[in-house]
């Protein structure tokens, strides 16, 4: 991955549009559609209906109902929004913070020592445990969950970016820029960052996928997004006590969750292959 991004811009053939990528794109669009329009049409799926508890899928409740009588279809559709929000916001946050720290560490020797020791320390704590601790620390809520998921990912991204930056800054064009008198900030912003963006985007897709999964894991352990903010993670988690009685509570959002993560990962892989000069530019 190191110098993965040092490829030319705009060099895209249609050959990247493979069948898995098409399917992934289709699903992602569908999920995005659900996320944007779902709650407008179906509400957020929080209406309680104790008389309709644990009903299997039927004409009036397509995906069945949960133990509070809430409609799983409505919750699945509106859960798309929050899962997507968690994924995308976390990725953006991680990208911004981790990216910035990575660039700083990669370019400035003094910052490198400090930042990387802290990163090593944070990475030495299993991410999920750190996240649990953060949620308990900050209290429940969507924002908290996003922060909690982001924090353990930041050092990883910072480290990755640092190594990318380190390899970019060794490239002759950076030296060339220094020798024509460019200021450091200009070199970082105009040469290093644009060339690291590719690697960063690939990392972003993985962080996005991981965030969606982490949110589910946190929900599973009871410290995920709040119950009135349905996400696929917490809908699945709310069904874990009922997985033999009402498997539909887990099944539908669980499948959607897996599809979302799968699609993002496939796109990420494709993006990485696309940017990896070793694969695309085998020969000079």
């Amino acid at each position, binding site marked *: 991955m190191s110098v993965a991004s040092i490829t030319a811009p705009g060099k895209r053939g249609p050959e990247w549009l493979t069948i898995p990528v098409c399917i992934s794109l289709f699903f992602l669009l569908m999920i995005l559609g659900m996320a944007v329009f779902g709650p407008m049409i179906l509400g957020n799926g929080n209406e309680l209906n104790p008389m309709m508890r644990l009903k299997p899928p039927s004409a009036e409740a397509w995906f069945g109902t949960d133990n509070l009588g809430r409609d799983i279809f409505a919750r699945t559709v509106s859960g798309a929004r929050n899962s997507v929000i968690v994924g995308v916001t976390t990725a953006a946050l991680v990208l911004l913070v981790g990216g910035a720290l990575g660039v700083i560490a990669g370019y400035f020797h003094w910052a490198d020592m400090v930042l990387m020791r802290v990163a090593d320390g944070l990475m*030495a704590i299993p991410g999920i445990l750190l996240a649990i601790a953060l949620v308990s620390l900050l209290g429940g809520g969507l924002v908290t969950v996003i922060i909690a998921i982001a924090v353990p990912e930041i050092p990883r991204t910072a480290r990755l970016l640092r190594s990318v930056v380190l390899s970019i800054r060794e490239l002759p064009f950076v030296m060339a820029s220094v020798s024509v008198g460019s200021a450091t900030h200009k070199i970082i912003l105009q040469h290093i960052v644009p060339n690291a963006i590719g690697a960063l985007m690939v990392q972003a897709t993985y962080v996005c996928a991981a965030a969606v999964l982490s949110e589910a894991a946190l929900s599973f352990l009871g410290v995920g997004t709040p119950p009135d903010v349905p996400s696929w993670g917490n809908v699945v988690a709310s069904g874990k006590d009922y997985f033999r009685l009402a498997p539909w509570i887990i099944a539908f959002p669980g499948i959607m969750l*897996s599809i979302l993560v799968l699609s993002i990962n496939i796109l990420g892989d494709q993006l990485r292959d696309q940017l990896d000069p070793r694969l695309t530019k085998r020969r000079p």
Partner: protein
Amino acid sequence: MNSFVFKRLLSVVPVVLVVLVTVFLLLHIGPGDPAAMIAGENATREQIEEIRQRLMLDRPLLEQLWLYLGNVASLNFGESVYSGFPVMSLILQRVEPTAILAIYTMVLSILISIPMGVWAAWRAGTTLDRALVIASVIGFSVPVFVIGYALVEIFALRLRWFPVQGYKSLADGFLACIRSLTLPAITLAFLFSALVARIARATMLEVLSEDYIRTARAKGARNRRVLIVHALKNIGVPVVTVIGTSFAALLGGVVITESVFNIPGMGRLTVDAILTRDYPVVQGVLISFSFVLIAINLLVDLSYALFDPRVRQ
């Protein structure tokens, strides 16, 4: 070599310090008071205050941090604020299932993933290769607990091959122990072998396009020999690296798997301790976890010498 090991060990010190301070601050800055948890449902405020004093939670934060670092330096992780058991002994009680589960998963995953990855690389571009690539993406796209529940449903409840939950310690016999951990290990192996197989495939592809592979073929070596004698050793470093780095992910998975299968391991101990604010236990466990990770990374670094003679001097 020795100085390499020594330096590597020395570099662990700041990492551990960061871990210690992070963990300490995390717990002590947040809301949630162990004293109130200990005191229980209908405790009065005086009772809670009393407990706070006993646990020295009323002291200034820095003083507590200082005391705590001092204790850790003398390898004293304190006692659980609930049971009063030394944290060390709680950890020792719980370490066995987690360790065996982690090792079992690793062995299982490596046995599955490396042959699969290598084979897929060898057959790169075929339908089978694509199937494997997709399978590996699925492996780390499906939440661990979904896989776990599915396995319980099939292999424990329907087929009754394995127990539904719980852990049989080694003292009950090796086979019983392995049997009780088989489903959890398979659950985790989905994730772990997906990660490793991916890297194995990718690096194998890369190695196979290396010049020295061409050299081996130009010498007249047959395919299998090229693969096993010339290529395999060279994927060692990246594969071992990914095993090391995804060990953290594995530990995260262990936490969840232990909940699904009710295995009394370190993962559940940590989650429970965080949720009940059992500070000394959380600190102790997280520190142990990070020591394990640090140690694994150390081993990974050292193992490079096994695969890559360039590292040896």
